[in-house]
């Protein structure tokens, strides 16, 4: 398979000598084939392919040449099926093509007439300017009464160029016709394929616009069919053509444009005649006036237009110089001209196979198995940039850590630059104090806020002056005992009414631990706020009043309800601060009585008693809060102070490696520079400056611009357990509401609308409407079905389809949320169910839909 393109060029240069010719061809073949010469595998495949093709073709096509088969195989990259189709097309008996079984339409009649005429015409060459122009001409020119030539064009389209070549009167061609008709057959097959579904009239404009000229692939007879005679003939032909072209040029300048041809020209101008080379094996059917039209700017088509020579010798050979190489040759030689052609073939057939895709070397090679050079460079850069970080890296990093790392690295490009820290390592290495958040719960007026105020005051977190100021203010409205509570209760409403309404978040530090107080409201109306506080806490401080009446009302009221909520929200550790011991003069009996009554309740509520510590104290006087009791009545007590008990409490284990979850506890304007800030506890995962977070349920993303720790110091990162303030950018304030969830965009939480949960009932539960709380976030839900009552300890079903769930029972219930949004819930997530101001139950999510 010698490269034909190279050949033709060589020949036209005029190497007549066969030897030189051969040498040259060999040289060129070797030179060009270096990269593309047939490899061993190719040869094997070729051999196998030829056999298969022969089999497929059968005896009918026994005359098919081996070379052609190889050619076809090479063209179709050993696709036997395609090669066979091609070869069958090529060697098929020619008769069926013109014999249309179709009803004779007007077009067909015209076409038939044209066909009949063509041979008898003066032998003028018709110019096929390119199929796109013919298609357009079809519709346009038919109106102008040019039906004949147009119809013939249509015929050209349908029957392909082969039919025309058969009709040619130039029998002299026969020497070469074999090869060239092969080529034309091939193209005609493709042309047919392409136009098979194009309607005769009303050609869709989409089809009109995208078709480009189908250049001729010439075979040139160079596959061994070449001879000196042929070479000679080609030379002569060339000469003739050159002469003719010169004549045509001269003629074109002098003659006025014919009307019809001008019309055609108008069509052609768009089509860039240069890209529509003439096929020498087709006879242009336009009258020769075509050549009289003012030539388009490009000289090429003019040169190519064969001028009819009424009397001249009509040996027609491929115009080798003007020809583009065949597809096959182009692939071999890699001629630059073949680029658009290949594309065209591809677009025409829609299935141009990738070269060498079947070759073994190709399939074996895995170019993406190794990093690309770019990757190598980037890695190196990253390594040098992240050098200090890699030092801090611990050796035994688990899979989870790697995951967390990779999650952290997933930072979308924003204005805020991420430092790409490994937060988990940073956290382990910075030797931070342990972080613990505790919620202070208890019945209203049992002294939660005052006890916390005392704690802060004694730890010098607040200075003397501000407390004195509060005292004065409190005295002026006759509530001097509230002064310490006012450290927590800051709104005018809270102060004037003397109750806490909302959670107060106050940080303080001891030597070992940095604590955050979540001072919950005790009033039953504000339990939603209290739930929000509990959801952030590691452990709880239950404040109970030591006085009998107050204690009893608490046990019926929020002492009980709070404890149940805390318990069902998964908090195990509980410090019971028996407050106001000064009012019962530190009586041991009273303390024990309170202790017994509370313990009995805890038992029924399934608290594990080993996690509960009882501390007597007095918030107002500060006895046994941070320092020992001075009162002599209290000598019986030798246990820890309230502060010591706090420090002895272990925070919950932190899920640092899990994806980020942060519940928004507050949305506010941080400062002029930070117009939008939020605060809230990180429930799981880590975050750092530059991280992108997803807010749910609004489904909006934001970027963390800056991080502030509870004590007001800036930080680069924060981890689970901390309650940082985040300054956000790239988000509008309307998308952030209290209780919303921020999570990692790579691992978002689903917004759940209906779910099944295990529910511990605090009240009688029937199918009913409930408020479903997930922290501060809440939604109205409907308990649609009571599936079963479960055994408290084993989880086995004891009763199916109960009509009502009694307090203290555990049931599996189905809940559907109203409204469109749903709640961001995960399996294992905890919810609180409330109705009409009472907590009716607490749930543990089992599954959702």
């Amino acid at each position: 398979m010698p490269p034909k393109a190279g050949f033709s060029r060589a020949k036209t240069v005029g190497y007549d000598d066969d030897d030189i010719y051969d040498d040259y061809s060999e040289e060129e073949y070797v030179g060009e084939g270096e990269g593309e010469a047939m490899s061993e595998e190719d040869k094997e495949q070729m051999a196998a392919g030829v056999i298969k093709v022969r089999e497929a073709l059968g005896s009918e096509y026994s005359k098919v040449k081996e070379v052609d088969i190889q050619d076809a195989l090479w063209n179709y990259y050993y696709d036997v099926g395609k090669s066979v189709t091609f070869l069958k097309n090529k060697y098929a008996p020619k008769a069926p093509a013109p014999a249309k079984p179709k009803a004779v339409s007007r077009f067909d009649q015209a076409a038939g007439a044209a066909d009949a005429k063509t041979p008898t015409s003066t032998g003028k060459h018709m110019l096929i300017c390119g199929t796109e122009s013919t298609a357009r001409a079809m519709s346009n020119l038919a109106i102008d009464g040019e039906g004949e030539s147009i119809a013939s064009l249509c015929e050209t389209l349908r029957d392909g160029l082969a039919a025309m070549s058969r009709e040619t009167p130039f029998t002299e061609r026969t020497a070469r016709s074999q090869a060239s008709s092969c080529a034309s057959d091939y193209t005609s097959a493709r042309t047919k394929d392409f136009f098979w579904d194009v309607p005769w009239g009303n050609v869709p404009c989409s089809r009109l616009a995208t078709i480009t000229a189908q250049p001729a692939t010439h075979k040139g007879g160079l596959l061994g069919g070449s001879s000196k005679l042929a070479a000679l003939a080609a030379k002569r032909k060339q000469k003739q053509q050159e002469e003719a072209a010169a004549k045509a040029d001269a003629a074109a300048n002098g003659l006025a444009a014919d009307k019809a041809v001008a019309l055609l020209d108008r069509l052609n101008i768009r089509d860039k005649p240069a890209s529509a080379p003439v096929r020498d094996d087709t006879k242009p059917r336009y009258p020769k006036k075509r050549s009289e039209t003012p030539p388009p700017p490009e000289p090429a088509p003019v040169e190519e237009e064969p001028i009819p020579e009424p009397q001249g010798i009509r040996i027609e050979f491929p115009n080798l110089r003007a020809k583009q190489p065949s597809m096959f040759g182009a692939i071999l030689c890699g001629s630059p001209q073949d680029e658009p052609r290949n594309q065209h073939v591809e677009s025409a057939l829609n299935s141009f196979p990738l070269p060498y895709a079947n070759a073994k070397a190709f399939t074996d090679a895995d170019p993406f198995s190794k990093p690309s050079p770019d990757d190598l460079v980037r890695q190196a850069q990253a390594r040098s940039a992240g050098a200090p970080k890699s030092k801090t890296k611990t050796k035994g990093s688990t899979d989870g850590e790697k995951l967390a790392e990779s999650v952290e690295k997933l930072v979308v490009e924003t204005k805020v630059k991420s430092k790409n820290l490994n937060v988990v390592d940073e956290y382990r290495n910075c030797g931070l104090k342990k972080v613990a958040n505790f919620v202070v719960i208890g019945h209203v007026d049992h002294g939660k806020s005052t006890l916390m105020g005392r704690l802060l005051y004694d730890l010098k977190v607040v200075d003397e002056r501000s407390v004195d100021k509060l005292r004065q203010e409190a005295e002026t409205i006759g509530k001097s005992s509230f002064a310490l509570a006012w450290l927590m209760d800051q709104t005018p409403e809270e102060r004037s009414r003397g109750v806490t309404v909302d959670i107060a978040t106050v940080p303080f530090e001891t030597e070992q631990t940095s604590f955050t107080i979540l001072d919950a409201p005790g009033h039953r109306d504000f339990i939603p706020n209290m739930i929000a506080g509990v959801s952030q806490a590691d452990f709880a401080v239950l404040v109970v009043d030591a006085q009998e009446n107050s204690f009893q009302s608490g046990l019926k009221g929020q002492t009980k309800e709070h404890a149940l909520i805390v318990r069902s929200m998964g908090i195990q550790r509980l410090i019971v601060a028996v407050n106001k011991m000064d009012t019962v003069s530190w009586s041991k009996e009273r303390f024990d009585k309170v202790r017994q009554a509370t313990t009995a309740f805890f038992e029924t509520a399934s608290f594990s008693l080993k996690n509960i510590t009882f501390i007597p104290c007095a918030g107002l006087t500060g006895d046994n809060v941070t320092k020992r009791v001075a009162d002599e009545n209290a000598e019986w007590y030798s246990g820890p102070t309230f502060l010591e008990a706090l420090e002895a409490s272990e925070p919950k284990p932190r899920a640092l490696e899990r994806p980020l979850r942060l519940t928004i506890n507050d949305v506010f304007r941080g400062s002029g520079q930070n117009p939008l800030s939020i605060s809230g506890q990180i429930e799981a995962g880590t975050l750092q400056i530059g991280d992108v977070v997803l807010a749910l349920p609004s489904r909006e993303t934001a970027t963390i611009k800056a991080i502030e720790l509870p004590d007001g110091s800036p930080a680069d990162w924060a981890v689970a357990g901390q309650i940082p303030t985040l300054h956000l950018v790239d988000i509008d304030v309307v998308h952030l509401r209290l209780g919303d969830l921020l999570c990692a965009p790579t691992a978002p939480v689903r917004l759940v609308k209906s779910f099944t949960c295990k529910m511990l009932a605090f009240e009688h539960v029937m199918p009913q409407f409930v408020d479903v709380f997930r922290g501060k976030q809440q939604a109205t839900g409907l308990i649609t079905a009571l599936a079963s009552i479960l055994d408290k300890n084993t989880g086995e079903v004891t009763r199916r389809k109960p009509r009502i769930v009694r307090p203290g029972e555990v049931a599996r219930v189905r809940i559907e949320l109203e409204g469109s949004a749903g709640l961001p819930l995960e399996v294992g997530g905890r919810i609180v169910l409330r109705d009409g101001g009472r907590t009716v139950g607490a749930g543990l999510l089992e599954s959702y839909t």
Partner: protein
Amino acid sequence: MKLLRQQIEAKTGAGSATLLPEEPEDMWHAYNLIQPTDQIRAKAIRRISKDMGAGAVTSQRIALDLTIAVTSTDFDLASNELHVAGRVVSENEHVKLGSHHTLDLELNRKFTLEKVDGWDSVAVGMLSEACNTSSRAEMWAVVMGEGIANICLITEHQTVLRNRVEVAVPRKGKGHMEQHNKGLEKFHNTLLGTLQRDMEGAKRDAQTEKTVPLLLASAGFYAQAFLQFIKEYAVRSGNKFLQALVPSIVIAHSAGEHVHNLAEVLASPACTAKLSDAKFTRETALMDTFMKHMRLEDGRAAYGPREIERAVESGAVGRGGGVLLISNTLFRSHNLAERKRWVALVDRVKEVEGGEVRVLSSLHESGKRLEALGSIAAILTYPLEEMDEEEEDVANGVRANDEEMII
């Protein structure tokens, strides 16, 4: 709703009634009255196309009286519009028999309703209730929390959420007090503006000078704070409408800021005093009684279609305290057999057993509570045996201490 003409035979229930809806709520009654297969005659505007010959077609809109057999009804709660779709059953020169038409029932335009299967007791009851114009209590209610409020219009049969106000109020905290107060003020401003628009708009529509009372309900003292704000604003701005409103504002306690928290509010004395009609107060009270029996597990309460039918069969919903609570959604069922089933049950309780029957509006809170229970419930005269499967009684209260609980 005004009953213009009634031709209903007492015995068979055959006949028709001509009604004139006068206020938006009447549309709700009409929605409950009109069933598929009913025939309804009303003024309609229909576009008629006429073939003028030679392919020319002219179309014009003409008003004509149409009688259609109802196939479906569509009620838009927010705008109180009722669309009744059906097929024309009386031919006239413009409209062919059997062609489709959707009637838009409008206020102050009469329509005639005829029931093919006759008017059953429930339908007659609904009709008389709809035409009882004596009690036209209505009340605006704002159920609110901090930064969130629901504005509702409570009428005899409906609680309609008219608007929802949500304003982010920053929480208290170090140095944020200013923001908290600002946020609260903004919330109050927005809420008052919205409320005023709603109330004034409704007043214009109703064309009455009567000031509708306003109920502010909240947990804690958000409502008081808002009332304070309204008072100050009314004085400061000299707004006549607000000044007239202030004396008729009632404060009530609700558990939360949700519309369904209104249930307890409506039962509260502050509310019953203002709303002259006792219908929903009675219904709420009955629901509470039902809940009480459920809680006590004395067997004197039952819910769910199957249980209730069993209870009625065994005569437990009869004289001496038997009350059948049924939501009107069951009568709106498009399945006629279903509707008949419930009508028969109601008739039986009323006529045979001598019990009380209450049809609760699904647009009211008590009705919603009932819907959650399967739209039907009953207070029984005597305890029926436990309807669940028997449970093995395990006293596991004490044992629970050592083991981890599953929740």
